[in-house]
């Protein structure tokens, strides 16, 4: 196909006009990361698992066939020493040791588990990001006094980090008394050093970048540079870490419940507590332990898959 030069130019102009109109606005880094996230199968699997988990946690308790605290099995005389009936047509997962419907308890328990995971991660993220943010801004932009503040805060974080996390959680739980709030605070505090260190390190490396120098040479105030340039550019690894922490928070909360430091009202189902209760009946009905264990593993897997995919999507090295 041959075109005269004039026609050719016309055609190119029209094409370039079309192309320009096609994406009128620029694509920000977040938008691009989201686009890459959608193209990653691991992210989709993780997101589907988490969506199901959240759905079950939110609407599940309204739809369960039996009340989670109703001891049907005892009422009907099905529970005898050494006998816990397995799955039937009406009770898909059978009964637990107090004759309650295991399926209903699993569904209601999802809500508690999600609550513990999210709240404790948020506690850790909030305190950790505050300490890390102050420390990072002070170290990166604050001069001599800034380095003092940074050193003081980081030695405190080092102390937290030096303690084994479960021991720290157990001491906090022992100090505050066993309750669901205690578990959330304990698990949250354990993740504080990770968030603080991560945000601080990320901020210090950003504070040494050329665009911060450029903002300084524009005459922008240091506090404004910290808030508008340094913090937004340092958040990506922290967000990824939060997603991954959700998984470990659920497992750690289960561990604390297992040790008897969780909610003393065992009538309220929570996967960790259910797992702890089931250990006495492992010989009679091991599946009582398998249900919550598998549920915890799948949920943690969902968070981990999504977290890892987010890490990849936000990694500037992989950007074209």
């Amino acid at each position, binding site marked *: 196909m041959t075109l005269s030069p004039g026609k050719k130019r016309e055609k190119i102009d029209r094409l370039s006009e079309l192309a*320009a109109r096609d994406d009128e606005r620029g*694509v*920000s880094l977040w938008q691009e990361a989201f686009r890459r996230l959608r193209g990653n199968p691991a992210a989709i699997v993780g997101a589907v698992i988490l969506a199901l988990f959240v759905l079950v946690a939110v609407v599940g308790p309204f739809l369960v066939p039996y009340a989670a605290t109703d001891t049907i099995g005892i009422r009907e005389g099905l529970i005898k020493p050494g006998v816990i009936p397995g799955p039937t047509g009406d009770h898909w997962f059978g009964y637990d040791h107090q004759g309650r419907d295991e399926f209903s308890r699993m569904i209601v328990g999802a809500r508690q588990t999600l609550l513990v995971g999210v709240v404790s991660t948020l506690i850790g993220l909030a305190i950790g990001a505050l300490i890390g943010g102050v420390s990072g801004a002070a170290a990166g932009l604050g001069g001599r006094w800034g380095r003092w503040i940074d050193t003081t805060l980081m030695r405190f974080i080092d102390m937290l980090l030096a303690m084994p996390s479960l021991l720290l959680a157990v001491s906090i739980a022992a100090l505050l008394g066993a309750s669901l709030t205690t578990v959330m605070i304990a698990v949250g505090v354990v993740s504080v050093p990770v968030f603080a260190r991560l945000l601080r390190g990320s901020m210090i490396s950003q504070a040494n970048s*050329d*665009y911060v*120098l*450029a903002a300084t040479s*524009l*005459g*922008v105030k240091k506090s404004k540079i910290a808030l508008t340039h340094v913090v937004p550019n340092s958040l990506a690894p922290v967000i990824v870490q939060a997603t991954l922490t959700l998984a470990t928070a659920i497992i750690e909360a289960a561990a604390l419940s297992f040790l008897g430091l969780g909610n003393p009202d065992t009538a309220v189902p929570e996967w960790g507590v259910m797992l702890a209760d089931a250990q006495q009946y492992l010989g009679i009905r091991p599946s009582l332990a398998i249900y919550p264990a598998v549920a915890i593993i799948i949920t943690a897997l969902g968070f981990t898959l999504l977290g890892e995919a987010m890490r990849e999507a936000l990694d500037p090295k992989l950007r074209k």
Partner: protein
Amino acid sequence: MSENDILVEVRDLKVHFPIKRGVLFDRVVGQVKAVDGVDLSIARGKTYGLVGESGCGKSTLGRALLQLTPPTAGEVSFDGVELTTLPSGKLRSMRRRMQMIFQDPMSSLDPRQNVESILTEGLQTHGIGTDRTDRRRIIGETLDAVGLPRWALSRYPHEFSGGQRQRIGIARALVLGPELIVADEPVSALDVSIQAQVVNLLDELQDSLGLTYLVIAHDLAVVRHISDTVGVMYLGALVEEAPSDRLYTEPLHPYTRALMSAVPVPDPDVEDRRERILLAGDLPSPANPPSGCRFHTRCPWAQPTRCADERPVLRDIGVSRVACHFAEQIASGELRPHGVSAQIVRPEGEGDAPGVVSAPTEPGSYV
């Protein structure tokens, strides 16, 4: 040249970085003398080019001039205002008049800001423009000046090519209407074809806006093209300063001679026959600079007297300023170059006695 024509005057500027050791309490164990006593003045509306090999302190000098790196000692006067003692608030409002262009346009632009936000930031900081539309007008004019299309405003830095990014960096500096622009290696991260465009853009902007430039570069051709005066730096100090053409045709300092002899000539006959001065060894450590003349450990003209124990000051020779004791004798051919063997330079307190650190072992033949 009258007093009014000088926009920037730097006197005995020093930037020393402490070397710290220690886990809990920092202990200063030494100083890296990145810039160690520089005097220079830049005329209004002119371009001062600063050349030197990497690590010689030219970028640090540029940053210290803008007070982005606090100087250890010395004075920087900008249009009669002493910057080193200026309170931080006043300095910040002063920054409107002096801007910087960076080497790597990607890392000097915040990846999360679109072009409009990059350009608005400075305007907001200095309260330029009455409202959004007025600021848009100023930004639009700046985009035109640097040759970027209007649709660039809503785009992000990673969506542009290297040359366009550098134009964004130039626009960011220009939008405030500065008088002085310090360009730190403005083209060295760009392709050669783009380099010419950006250099020409800087030239045009100087003509139309009357800008004063301090251009820092290691590319001698770029500096020659753009500069009125060129200063050559070696290990934290100026060794020679001369009008651009003069420096290239008649270098006086041995280090400048060596630099110039490294520029290839696009004529195979001349290229084959021309004299080349190869410097032995590496740049000495700025933490432990040689005594006397900083260059005497590598200088093919080094003399047993004065060079090792007396630091030469910049002297006027014709229209040039040269920091060499024997510049005249070298220029007249009275002194001949001799061989120099590379020296092993050890940090103080390590290995052999520090006496071996400097002075060529073989003074060589000289007339």
